């Protein structure tokens, strides 16, 4: 079946602009995670959804970052007033309910802020 998909695969924007990154999880997966991977680093947790609600947003770096999952499926990560330091690969993962069920990762969106 289809895996986790993320769009766009690449996004180039200018400093100060607003961007939206989309994640389509595996059908039926109730848990959804966003991570950010900077160059030469491992993925860093941003936010976790269980269903429609953000159960843990402790990893969001500041209030310019926001994520939604209105119908408990597709999620959008929104970044306002982008900064050059936001440049990274943004990864989405989904899993079925239950703690520590395997997280299936998407290929990521590479965001470049000029």
């Amino acid at each position: 079946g289809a895996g986790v998909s993320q769009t766009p695969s690449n996004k180039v924007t200018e400093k100060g602009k607003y961007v939206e990154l989309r994640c389509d999880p595996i059908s039926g997966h109730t848990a959804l995670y966003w991570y950010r991977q900077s160059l030469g680093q491992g993925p860093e947790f941003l936010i976790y959804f269980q269903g429609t609600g953000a159960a843990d947003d402790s990893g969001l770096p500041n209030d310019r970052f926001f994520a939604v999952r209105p119908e408990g499926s597709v999620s959008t990560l929104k970044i306002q007033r982008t900064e050059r330091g936001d440049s990274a690969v943004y990864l989405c993962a989904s899993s079925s309910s239950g703690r520590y069920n395997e997280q299936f990762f998407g290929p990521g969106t590479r965001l470049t802020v000029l």
Partner: protein
Amino acid sequence: AQSVTQPDIHITVSEGASLELRCNYSYGATPYLFWYVQSPGQGLQLLLKYFSGDTLVQGIKGFEAEFKRSQSSFNLRKPSVHWSDAAEYFCAVGPTTGTASKLTFGTGTRLQVTL
């Protein structure tokens, strides 16, 4: 706070040789432990995980890892490396409390395989 250290940034091995990738963690108790592999253009893929019980865990693609509490380590091993194993490998820990299965990753080890 939990953290993961992967001391080797880059490792090169010959095809057919054995492999060991190091991982040390810092956590107040025994965490849940994971190894993921990331190939170019591919998403992260889970190789294996440790929750409890037998400290030697078997994973996919012929990989295994051993949890050593006394050393706070969870090293990944493979007896004979194949050229297709060239990739980036990440060790990760997850908290044993709370509701979120959020993972803390190390900085990764890039494996190069020579023919």
